[in-house]
């Protein structure tokens, strides 16, 4: 294998003698690997931030939501709600410690002569305050929690930021929500979820009054089990209770609700982001494949051009294996250099996107760059190089020395 070093030398010399073409070929791989690295690291980052949001939701919390989980998107868009009766049924379950209904609606909020649309979230402060502090880890940056029943609100950290209204919100400010005046009572520290940070929170009755929706229906119920009760067990109890209600109401024995533990939520989110990653990977893989075709094309050209040289090498004792190795190493180097360039370029762009995304409040995205991704990028591009070089190198090896020598440059 001592000769492999020599083959490397020959390969690198050959690449350098046709510099422009080599760089173009390498560029083809750079683009592919760059796409893989950027997209995968960003989508992994997306996955991480979703998981972080789920964690922010709290480990032992059970979410009760309208609609079927199989059709999460429809539920989100469809405006289905859980009825007042449902809320009460959940509250009545013995193993339930706290059941907190929440509802949300997009509303206009006006401050500093600027009107913006944010989520107005309503939840009962009497139960909700402790729940949010103890189990969700929310805390106020300034101010106090509102008095239940009063037109007071707390604002998420993004809403309070000076970039949002051109002037930072602070305690004591008055804002107008859906035409009604509210006093800002407290401002939240970031709760780790972009969506929650860009919302304002009011008491449950105040929410109903502001939005005009007095049905008492909830978009979701957050449930905390009593100590010693397993979330999964309680989830079953909740399902039974809600099914009971639906049975009593004739004709609606379909389970039009979902009870989700945070574990299950995680796996759903994992499935969605996983699908995104697969899609992203497929697209990127196609572009690497094209890069591979490019290498193959370049190597066929190289074989044609160097027919005579191949003849000489065979005349002075190069076996078919040696000729194949020389060309494989050459295309492997092209792949590897392209891969290295792609990884570096990809990391830079991923970091740039992250940097600019951080400035944009609605789209907080962190690039997640795993060492595996880098190793994969390098290895994969090297492999693509070798695979793309295989057929051309075989053609080179099969040349008859006499015919190769007869060709004139």
């Amino acid at each position, binding site marked *: 294998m*001592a*000769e492999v*070093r*020599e083959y490397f*030398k*020959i390969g690198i*010399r*050959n690449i*350098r*003698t046709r510099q422009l073409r080599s760089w173009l070929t390498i560029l083809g791989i750079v683009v592919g690997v760059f796409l893989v690295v950027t997209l995968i690291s960003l989508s992994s980052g997306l996955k991480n931030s979703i998981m972080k949001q789920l964690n922010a939701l709290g480990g032992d919390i059970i979410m009760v939501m309208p609609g079927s989980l199989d059709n999460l998107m429809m539920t989100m868009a469809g405006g289905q709600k859980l009825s007042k009766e449902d809320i009460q049924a959940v509250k009545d379950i013995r193993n339930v410690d706290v059941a907190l209904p929440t509802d949300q609606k997009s509303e206009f909020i006006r401050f500093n002569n600027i009107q913006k649309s944010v989520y107005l979230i309503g939840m009962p402060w009497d139960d909700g305050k402790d729940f949010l502090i103890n189990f969700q880890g929310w805390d106020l940056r300034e101010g106090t929690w509102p008095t239940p029943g009063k037109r007071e609100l707390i604002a998420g950290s993004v809403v309070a930021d000076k970039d949002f209204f051109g002037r930072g919100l602070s305690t004591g400010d008055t804002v107008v929500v859906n035409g009604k005046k509210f006093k800002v009572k407290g401002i939240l520290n970031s709760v780790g979820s972009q969506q929650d940070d860009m919302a304002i929170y009011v008491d449950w009755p105040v929410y109903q009054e502001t939005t005009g929706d007095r049905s008492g229906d909830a978009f979701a119920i957050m449930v905390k089990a009593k100590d010693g009760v397993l979330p999964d067990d309680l989830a079953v109890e909740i399902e039974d209770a809600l099914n009971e209600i639906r049975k009593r109401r004739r004709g609606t024995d379909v389970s039009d609700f979902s009870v989700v533990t945070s574990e299950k939520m995680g796996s759903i989110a994992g499935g969605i982001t996983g699908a995104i990653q697969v899609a992203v990977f497929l697209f990127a893989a196609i572009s690497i494949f094209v890069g591979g075709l490019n290498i193959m094309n370049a190597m066929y050209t190289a074989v044609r051009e160097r027919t*005579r*040289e191949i*003849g*000489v*090498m*065979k*005349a*002075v*004792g*190069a*076996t*078919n*294996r*040696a000729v194949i190795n020389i060309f494989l190493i050459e295309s492997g180097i092209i792949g590897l250099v392209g891969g290295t360039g792609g990884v570096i370029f990809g990391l830079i762009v991923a970091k740039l996107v992250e940097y600019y995304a951080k400035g944009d409040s609605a789209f907080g995205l962190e690039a997640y760059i795993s060492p595996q991704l880098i190793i994969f990028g390098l290895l994969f591009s090297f492999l693509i190089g070798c695979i793309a070089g295989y057929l051309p190198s075989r053609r080179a090896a099969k040349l*008859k*020395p*006499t015919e190769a*020598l007869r060709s*004139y440059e």
Partner: protein
Amino acid sequence: MENKSIIRLQDIWKVYQLGSVNVSALRGVNLEVDPGSFVTIMGPSGSGKSTLLNMIGCLDVPSKGKIFLDEEDTSTFSESKLAQVRGAKIGFIFQQFNLLHNLNALENVMLPMVFQGVLQEKRKSRAEHLLKLVGLEQRGSHLPAELSGGERQRVAIARAFANEPKLVIADEPTGNLDSHSGEKIMDMLSTFHKEEKGTLVVVTHDPMIAKYSEQVVNIKDGQIIKNHSQAGESLWQK
């Protein structure tokens, strides 16, 4: 004569198919090259002398007949085995020099040793020694493009001798050189022949070259028409 020959051609035919016509480049050639001899193959162009040289150098496979290299039947060799044996036992010098243009002189000389798996240290010292013998010890780091025609051919000669071959084959070695350089090359080859007791087969149509050799083979229309040793100079004739 029961001398073990280096290369022995036995009723060699080479037929090329050009469209629907079969062209016989060699027609039943028998030839033995004995160790330590200097053979010149002469003939007009199109006579089949290059084809014959390819056969002697085991670069080509005959359509019919057998080639024995060191009394081994090469038709039984695999392509790779043949390449290996060729690299070890036969050195080539071409009219076009055929140096690898992006390797420098020293690396070109080392190349045949690379394929034989000779270690780097040994490769280098042997190549330096050979370059010195052809008077190019100062030019080792130059690329072929930076050398004159004569110098390139001298590098090619050094390369041909890299693996201490039993047989060196030269195809019109002076064909692309001016007469002065050509003479120098022939001097060098005959010196190698005499001092290293190497076997040399040269193809040429230049009668001047024939005077260096001990045996002249004339070929015409794919057949050997005359095979004679030059009086008094032959080493192999007792």
